[in-house]
């Protein structure tokens, strides 16, 4: 690496590049552009009506109770993919957002935007999946709404789900609680959902028997909390594990070091990522969580995770440190070190 000082000779004043004046797909990637959209447009415009914390769910004081509240829209294409469909995704996504703040999910609402011409059979199968996922998570769908738009005004079906959950006193978790010395735990292999959805897109033409990991994680979170303290929680959905950990490091003001060899990635996901030039750390998951747990408790928490259905392959992937706040690094398999950052823009179109 050259350490020579920058040579400023011959530089002119910067010409500002014209800022983009429209939404681009990358604004929905869950990475840096999504955050820019929130912090530069949405939050300032909402002013005093804007949320004060950006976690997976808001936690509201409601009388003497703490109530978690969240909403999520689902626009995945195609509607059906190996391992799930938009219905299961819509229920699990909101259940998991509630679980990630330490809430016990209680009830969801479901809003449907249907495109004229949608097949009743497809819609029926999607609704069955929603019912099944709700039963599994132990929530009920308390209210709903349907709208139909002209053919071409939507892509078959969009689903919004909102959810409420109760948070026991002193049990709220966020992305801001990670402490130096914590151990970073991951509930299983990463990237299954993103690659499974990608494989279902006809324009790519690769085949795999990989299935999406889409699953409700509230029972896993409960088992972890019963086994020991959990300082920070996130589900690495859009933007992947890298984005989730970068958010935890930023919010908690800590550094995180990961061990590449310890991060499980299935061979099919690795192969697809090698082929398409993706980093598995940026590929979406819908049934995984990452947690920061005090070192003295991590073995108990890990055992509890492995005893649950969606945590069987849980493992330790890194540590929280006292380095520069917000810095996430990866110790590579060959012994080098590199920086981990959020996904910058668009990677995969509409994966959730």
């Amino acid at each position, binding site marked *: *690496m*050259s350490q020579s000082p920058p040579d400023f000779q011959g*530089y002119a*004043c910067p*010409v500002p*590049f014209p800022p983009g004046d429209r939404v*681009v797909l*990358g604004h929905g990637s869950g990475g840096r552009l999504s955050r820019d959209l929130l912090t530069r447009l949405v939050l300032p415009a909402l002013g005093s009506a804007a949320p004060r914390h950006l976690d997976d769910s808001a936690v509201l004081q409601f009388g003497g109770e703490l109530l978690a509240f969240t909403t999520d829209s689902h626009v995945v294409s195609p509607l059906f993919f190996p391992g799930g469909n938009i219905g299961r995704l819509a229920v699990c996504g909101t259940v998991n957002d509630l679980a990630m703040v330490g809430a016990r999910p209680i009830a969801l609402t479901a809003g449907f935007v249907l495109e004229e011409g949608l097949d009743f059979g497809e819609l029926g199968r999607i609704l069955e999946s929603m019912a099944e996922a709700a039963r599994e998570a132990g929530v009920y769908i308390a209210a709903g709404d349907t709208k139909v738009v002209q053919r071409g005004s939507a892509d078959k079906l969009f689903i919004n789900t909102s959810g409420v959950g109760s948070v026991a006193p002193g049990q709220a978790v966020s992305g801001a609680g990670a402490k130096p010395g914590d151990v970073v735990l991951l509930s299983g292999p990463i990237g299954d959902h993103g690659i499974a959805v990608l494989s279902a897109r006809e324009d790519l033409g690769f085949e795999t028997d990989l299935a999406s990991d889409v699953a409700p994680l509230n029972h896993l979170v409960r088992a972890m909390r019963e086994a020991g303290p959990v300082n920070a929680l996130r589900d690495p959905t859009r933007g992947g594990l890298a984005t989730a950990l970068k958010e935890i490091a930023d919010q908690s003001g800590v550094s995180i070091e990961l061990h590449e060899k310890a991060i499980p990635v299935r061979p099919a996901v690795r192969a697809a990522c090698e082929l398409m030039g993706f980093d598995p750390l940026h590929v979406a998951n819908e049934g995984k969580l990452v947690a920061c747990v005090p070192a003295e408790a991590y073995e108990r928490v890990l055992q509890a995770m492995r005893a649950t259905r969606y945590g069987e392959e849980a493992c330790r992937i890194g540590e929280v440190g006292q380095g520069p706040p917000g810095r996430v690094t*990866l110790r590579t398999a*060959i012994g080098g070190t590199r920086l981990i950052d959020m996904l910058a823009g668009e990677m995969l179109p509409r994966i959730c």
Partner: protein
Amino acid sequence: MKYIDEYRDRESVQRLLGALRSSVTRHWTLMEICGGQTHAFLRFGLDALLPPEIELVHGPGCPVCVTPVEQIDRAVAIAGGAEVIFTSFGDMLRVPGTRSDLFAVRARGGDVRVVYSPLDAVKLAQDHPDRQVVFFAIGFETTAPANAMAAIAARARGVRNFSMLVSQVCVPPAMEAILASPRNRVQAFLAAGHVCAVMGYWQYHPIAARFHVPMAVTGFEPVDLLRGMQAVVNQLEAGQAKVENAYSRVVSEAGNRHAQEAMAKVFEPCDRQWRGIGMIPLSGLRLQPQFADLDAEARFDVGHLAARESSLCIAGEVLMGHKKPTDCPAFGRECTPTSPLGAPMVSAEGTCAAYFRYQRPQE
């Protein structure tokens, strides 16, 4: 995973690093040609493990980085046409032109689509006979054969609504331009393995001899990169300058004859502007006269384009190996992957993007 794990094996890497350390006696400046190699160095953290005597400078081998801004402006102009479906490899969509990029064209209602194979663009043209499908044929010798196949397929299938906006470039003339620059610091090349898989390395012998510069055809995994470095360091230390093949599991001296034939059938050499570097004689490829009817530049009259670069961007200096991304005052400030000033900050193979992603100093 076979062909991956054994080339990322920690012990093999450490052994090769030890050998490299014991064979290097003085400072050497090496250039890896290909952006894929640059990314591999940084992604694996390999650059920081190298002996301090070895300095890496990063080459121009990023296809979207060197595509001239005027061609991007032309792509933006063509893609805005109501009858057009503009197709491109994904990386190209975010490369800034003078005023806009292709993503912004799509956001304004243009029909811009990512394809993973140029043949998909031909199929798209067959599926939409009422539309004009344009494919942005960019890249080095790695993309040229498949892009040539698209032209051959379009001709064979009689597809009349398909055309190509061609901005193909070739590696050897760029290597000569770098070596001939009065400010050149490069003492040896790690030649681009994938380009050589297509072209072989018979073209490189005269360059190595003329400039007395050793070269090794080099792959993209840590073990491959170290083997290539060991080959050129051995030569440098011994005062030799020949072309070696350190990527023989993929590359042969003659290369892929079928691919070369397809290229020669469709394309012919031409002078080409390289973004940030300038005109390099006979460094590009354009359509042969018998394929001229597929030329999107002739099919779409977009009028005069006043192409302009950001004056802050030092992409040319970076692509020539004169400077590092971190030498640029805009790096990580005005210029980031979400608002790039120059193409090397955009592409998965861009040097600045690699530094930003894996190595930038913390804010």
